């Protein structure tokens, strides 16, 4: 019972997702399954971004970088053994002439993304929170410029095609669950709690012995790994990799999802991605046109983006914490013990008071 209670915030997210995916898998059309798989991959990315942005309070606009690094790395390892020596002639020999099995390829790609996050974090996390936020943009732009011009290795602006497609809705779900569990374990860990303390009050947290630099760097690296996982999934879901899929529009979409759901809790990230994915799909179909009875009804193209930006602004104005307001789902019946241990001193004081009969 106690365990269920403690794991409830995760279970409350994972079980509905499981049911949803089961229903979609059984009854949904192929296009709905596709859209849902994509949404689950976005969820992995959003949770990755949340690990850093949600816990530290610093928004990163640069996480697409790690996604792209992993996607390309996986493409280099697994893609099109026949064409690779011609289209990507600049690759080092062992990559150019070999095809690496999917799982090791995926893992090394995720590792590369995490490594990139760690190295860039070494510099970026030294900055004050606002400067760091802006500088993550520099990261995104550096990646974009390099990858769209490094034609002999990345095929420049062209699309790499012919990656093995193995990401089904269940694979995406498994990855989403892994991401959620990682995020939850992190935010309950010593480093996660320290990170959240710096979010609430930098000065007080520093005064209590928290290192801003190290706690942020750890979060940044971990979120880089998870963003890398999303990148690998995305590459092997689409079967293609193109640099234009990893730029500002996609970044905006994910940030909007996080903000609308509520950036400061894991539940917010999951709720935001789910709701906005549904909304986008509804709007997308509305742009193509519904027919109700004999009436054909369509909204103008591009209104999807306007509506999304509008909702985001309204949320920022009227409900800054997002839909979840920074809360996790909690065990609704017994709220006394939420897994946070009573501080030792407070416990001793309580016991002492009990013994002395003081109220």
């Amino acid at each position, binding site marked *: 019972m106690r365990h269920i209670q403690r794991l409830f915030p995760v279970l409350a997210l994972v079980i509905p997702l499981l049911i949803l995916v089961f229903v979609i898998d059984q009854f949904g059309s192929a296009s709905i399954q596709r859209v849902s798989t994509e949404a689950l991959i976005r969820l992995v990315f959003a949770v990755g971004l949340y690990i850093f942005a949600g816990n530290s309070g610093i928004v990163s606009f640069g996480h697409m970088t790690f996604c792209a690094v992993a996607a390309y790395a996986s493409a280099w390892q697994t893609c099109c053994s026949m064409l690779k020596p011609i289209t990507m002639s600049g690759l080092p020999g062992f990559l150019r002439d070999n095809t690496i099995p999917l799982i090791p390829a995926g893992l090394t790609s995720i590792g590369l993304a995490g490594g990139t996050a760690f190295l860039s974090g070494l*510099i970026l996390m030294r900055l*004050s929170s606002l400067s760091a936020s802006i500088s993550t943009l*520099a990261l995104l*732009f*550096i990646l974009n410029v390099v990858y769209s011009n490094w034609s002999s290795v990345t095929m420049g602006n062209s699309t790499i095609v012919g990656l093995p497609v193995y990401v089904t809705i269940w694979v995406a779900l498994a990855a989403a669950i892994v991401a959620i569990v990682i995020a939850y374990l992190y935010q309950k860990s010593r480093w996660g709690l320290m990170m959240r303390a710096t979010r609430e009050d930098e000065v007080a947290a520093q005064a209590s012995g928290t290192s801003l630099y190290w706690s942020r760097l750890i979060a940044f690296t971990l979120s880089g790994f998870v963003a890398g996982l999303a990148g690998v999934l995305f590459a092997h879901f689409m079967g293609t990799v193109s640099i234009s899929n990893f730029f500002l529009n996609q970044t*905006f979409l994910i940030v909007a999802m996080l903000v609308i759901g509520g950036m400061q809790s894991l539940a917010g990230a999951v709720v935001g991605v789910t709701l906005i994915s549904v909304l986008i799909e509804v709007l997308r179909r509305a742009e193509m046109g519904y027919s109700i009875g004999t009436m054909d009804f369509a909204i103008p193209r591009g209104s999807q983006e306007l509506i999304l930006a509008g909702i985001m602004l309204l949320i920022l104005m009227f409900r800054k914490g997002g839909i979840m307001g920074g809360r996790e789902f909690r065990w609704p019946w017994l709220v006394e013990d939420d897994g946070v241990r009573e501080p030792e001193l407070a416990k001793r004081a309580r016991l002492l008071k009990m013994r002395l009969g003081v109220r």
Partner: protein
Amino acid sequence: MTNIVQVLIDAVALGSLYALVALAIGLVFGVMRLVNFAQGDYITVGAYSLVIPTFAATPAMMFGALPTVAMIFCVVLTVTILALLTERLAFRPLRNSDPTTLLISSFAVSYFLQSLILMLHGGRPKAINIGESLTTAVQLFGIRIPGVQLLTMGVAVTLLVTLVLFLKKTPIGIQLRAAAENFQMARLLGVPANRVIAIAFAISGILGGTISLLFVIQTGTLDIRMGVMPTVYAFFATVIGGIGSLPGAVVGGYIVGIVSVLLQSYLPEEMRAFRDAGVFTLVILILLVRPQGLIVTSAAKERV
């Protein structure tokens, strides 16, 4: 010799442009702690206001058909009104939020404006011709200089000097600087908050409009993302200069502008495409040495 002078003129022209955008961003940041991502879209909207909204690749002129002075006036006025509107509708309700929330909201405003242009004008780049007479080269002391570069440099330097004089000499300018230094204190001493913020936005609108015209004359194309690059450069300029410092923004703008032109001219041919990456890497390296920026202000650390 000729080459060096030309590079120098290019560098000063581009540096002044970035300095202007950075100053606009710095001013708005100073008065309300908002890093305004939408500054780039002010530029884009200004450029698109030259033509009638259609999906055509070579559209008919709207403001572009007016005589030069009227055209400049109309474009600058449009952008200024837009800047004031975004302030009134989007940023004023958020005025007391933390800088991160404001940054995200400006990201949303930017996305909104971009989607709006996309809806009205379509996504393809457009060709447009204004100020053709300016693109011819000018012979100066035996050196051929493109007229556009001279114009850009002239306009940017004039605007910069005017703005500095405005900030230093007029009462409103002094109020603005005071507010940028310490907004609370300035308010206590009788500086009206709404007015200085509106003026800061109006200035960023005027600068946005002017810059959009300079860009269009230079490139002859309209593109949905045309404002993004200069704004991102200006962001880094303000970060390098020390966020919240107006002189820092100008210095930072010149640094990124000059470095960008130098890389463009002296990198080997096959490396030139990576110019922007070089500039951004430099930004990160400068930050490695001076995380607080070149000129440190009280805004660099969060107040207790």
